[in-house]
C-alpha cells in the first residue's frame, strides 16, 4: 500500500515538473485569434453588437464573452464564417438583431445646418464638412452603420439602400426547373 502511494506521488511529481516546464516554454503572448475574428467581421463599426466597434467585439468573442450571432451587418454568412473559424455550431440571429439590406447614408444638403454632430459620430471619417458648412458623405467609404442618423438635430440624414446597377449586378443562382416541377 505504501509502495503504491509512493509510486503515485513520484509519478505525479515527475509529470508535474514536465508540465511546469512546458507551461513556461510554451507561453502564449497576446491573442492572435482575435485578429482572425476581426478579419471576418464586416468592419461597419456600428456597435450593434453592444461593443464599441468590431475589434472589441472580436476580442470579446475570442475570450468567449460574446456570442457569434450579434453582428447583423455580417449577415448569416458572417455567423457561418465565425462558426467555422471557431468550430462551434451555427446560431441564428436573435429577434432584435436582424440584418437589414445594405445602405449608405445620404445628407440632404438643403436641410443640413452644418452642426458637425454627424462628423463626430462617424466611426470611419466618411463625412466631410466644417462647422456651419454643409456636410456630405463619401458614399464609397460609408459603412452604413447608421451612427450618424440619431445625432442629427434636423433629421437630414437618411439611409439609402444600395440599388442594383449594371456595375454591381450579379448572376442569380441557377434555378433548376426540375425542382420547380415537383
Amino acid at each position, binding site marked *: 500500500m505504501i509502495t503504491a502511494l509512493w509510486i503515485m506521488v513520484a509519478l505525479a511529481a515527475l509529470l508535474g515538473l514536465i508540465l511546469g516546464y512546458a507551461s513556461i516554454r510554451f507561453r502564449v503572448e497576446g491573442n492572435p485569434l482575435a485578429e482572425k475574428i476581426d478579419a471576418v467581421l464586416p*468592419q461597419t463599426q456600428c456597435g450593434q453588437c453592444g461593443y464599441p466597434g468590431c475589434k472589441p467585439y472580436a476580442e470579446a468573442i475570442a475570450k468567449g464573452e460574446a456570442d457569434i450571432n450579434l453582428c447583423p451587418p455580417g449577415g448569416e454568412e458572417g455567423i457561418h464564417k465565425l462558426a467555422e473559424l471557431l468550430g462551434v455550431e451555427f446560431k441564428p440571429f436573435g429577434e432584435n438583431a436582424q440584418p437589414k439590406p445594405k445602405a449608405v447614408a445620404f445628407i440632404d444638403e438643403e436641410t443640413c445646418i452644418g452642426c458637425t454632430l454627424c462628423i463626430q459620430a462617424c466611426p470611419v471619417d466618411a463625412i466631410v464638412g466644417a462647422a456651419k458648412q454643409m456636410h456630405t458623405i*463619401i458614399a464609397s467609404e460609408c459603412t452604413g452603420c447608421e451612427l450618424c442618423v440619431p445625432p442629427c438635430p434636423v433629421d437630414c440624414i437618411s439611409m439609402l439602400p444600395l440599388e442594383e446597377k449594371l456595375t454591381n449586378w450579379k448572376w442569380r443562382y441557377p434555378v433548376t426547373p*426540375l425542382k420547380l416541377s415537383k
Partner: protein
Amino acid sequence: MALSGDSFKAIEMRTLHHFHGGIHPPTHKSQSTGTGIATLPLPEKLVVPLHQHVGNCAVPEVRVGEHVLKGQRIGRPEGRQSSAVHAPTSGTVAAIDMQTVAHASGMPDLCVTLIPDGKDEWIAHAGVDYRNTSHTDLRHMLRDAGVVGLGGAVFPSDIKSYSRHHKITTLVINGAECEPYITCDDMLMRERPRDILRGAEVLRELLYADEVLIGIEDNKPEAIAAMRKALEQDGHQHMEVIAVPTLYPGGGAKQLILVLTGVEVAAGVRSTEKGVQCFNVATAWSVWRAIAHGEPLLSRIVTVTGNVEHAQNFEVLLGTPVQELVAYAGNKPDTGRYIMGGPMMGVDLPNSSVGVTKATNCIIAASPALFPPPQPALPCIRCTRCTDVCPAELQPQDLYWFAKSNNFGKAQEFSLFDCIECGACAYVCPSHIPLVHYYRYAKSEILVRDHDKRAADLARERHEFRQFRIEREKQEKAERLAQKERAAAEAKAKAVTELPTQVDPAADADDTQQLRIDAALARAKEQAAAASPRNTELLTPEQRSEVEAIEARRAKIHKIASDAGADDEPPKRN
C-alpha cells in the same frame, strides 16, 4: 492555289500545337455565307450606349437637341482604360439617358439616342501614314477612334498595342471564328483581306513584333485563300496565314495562341508577358480604317442568322436596334428571343430594341425549334465528360459541386477564375446542368465578396486611424492645457521675481502650434488626395450629374452670400 516557295516552306515547318479538350458542335455557318456583306439602310433611330468597351464609361460630350455629324465624337474616353464613342451618322441627339443595353442583366446604362437626318454627312477626317507617325500619336488615334477588340472582348486596342516591358515575338491575328453560326469574320476576310493585313502591319509596327501569324479555322477555305492571295499581292513580310483545325473553342485567344505558338497563357497573366499579343481580324481592319483613313469605329459586320428568311452578314451602324436588323433579314414569326453572339457564349438579349454595340458580332433569332428551352437538369453523375472537353483543364464537375453548395472558397481553390466560360462542359453534360451559369453565379458572388472585404479593410483602417486621432487630440489638448498652466505659473513667478523680459514664451507656443496646424493641413490634403479619386472615379452618370447639380447650387449660394456682402468669412472649399 499557288503558293510561293517561301511561304510553302514556312507552312511545312510550322508545327501546330493542341489545346486540351474541345468540342465539335454543328457549325450552321453555311446559311449566312451565301451572299456577301450587305449594308443595312439607315434606321429611324440609333441607341448608342456610351459604355461599349472594357474600362470606364465614356463621358457624353453632346447635349440633347444638338446636331451631330457622322464620325463626331459624342463620348469622351475617361481615364486610362476607356475608349471614345462616335455618332454613327449625322443627325440630332434626341436623348441622353439610361436605356436597356445588350447585357445579360437586362439593366439600363447610359445611352445616346440619335435621330438620323438621312444625309449621312461626315465630319472632316483624314488619315496618316503610319510609317512616319509616332507610336504615341498612333495609339492616341486608336483611342480617339474608339477602336476596341471586336472579337467580343471589347478591350481598348490602344492599350493592347503597347508593350513596354516585354519583347513581343509573335502577333497573332485571330480569324478562327470557332463559334457556330457566326460568319462575320469569315466574310470580312473574304471581302476585305487587304485592309486586314494592312491593319495587322500597323499593329505589328506598334508592338515591334517579329512575326504575324494569322490563324483561321480550316472550315473557311475561301477566307484562307483570300487572305493568302492578299498577302502575296501586297508582299507582306514575316506574315503567315495558317489554317488551324476546326475545334471549339479554338478561337479563344488563349487557345489560338497555344495552337499557333505553343505558349500557354495562364489566367490572370497578360499574353504580352509571354511575348505574344492577339487581335481579332475585324479589329485589325478597323485599326487600318482609323489610321489610314481617320475613320472612327462607327459600324461593324454583324451576322444575322437563325430563324430568319435570309441569313446574311450586314455592315451595321452601332446603335441600330436589333429588331430593325432582324426585320430586314426577314424575321420569321415564331422567333421567341434573340441571342447576341454565338450559341455557346452569347447573351440572351433582354429585348429586341437594344442597340448593336461594338461587341455584337452576331444576332441569332432563336425559335423554340432551333433552341429548345433548357431541359430539366439531373444531378451530376461525375462522368467527367466535362473534364475531357475543358480547354482550361479544369475539373468542371467539382467546380459545379462547390458553386452549387455556395462553397466559394473551395471553388476558387479549384481555379474557378481560370474558367473562360466557353460552354464546352455544359454542351456535353448528359445531365443538362447549366454549368456555366453556376460558374458565372459563383464568380459574381466572389467578386462582390472580395469588394466587400476590401471595403471592410478600408473601413477598419479608417476606424483605427480615427481612434488614433482622437487619442492624439486628447493628448495634445491635455498637453496644451498643462503647458498653458505652466506658462501662467511661470509668468506669475517671473512677474514676481524679476522684470519681464522680451522673451515671450507664448511666441514659442504659437510657433509649435503653427507647425502643428501646418502638419495637420498637409495630412488633410494628403488624405483628400487619396480619397478624391475614389470619390469621383466610380461615379455613375446620375451621380455625376448630381454632383454637378450640387456644385451649381453651391456656386449659386456663394454668389448670393458674396452679393449680400455680409461680414462672413469667405466660404472655404474643401
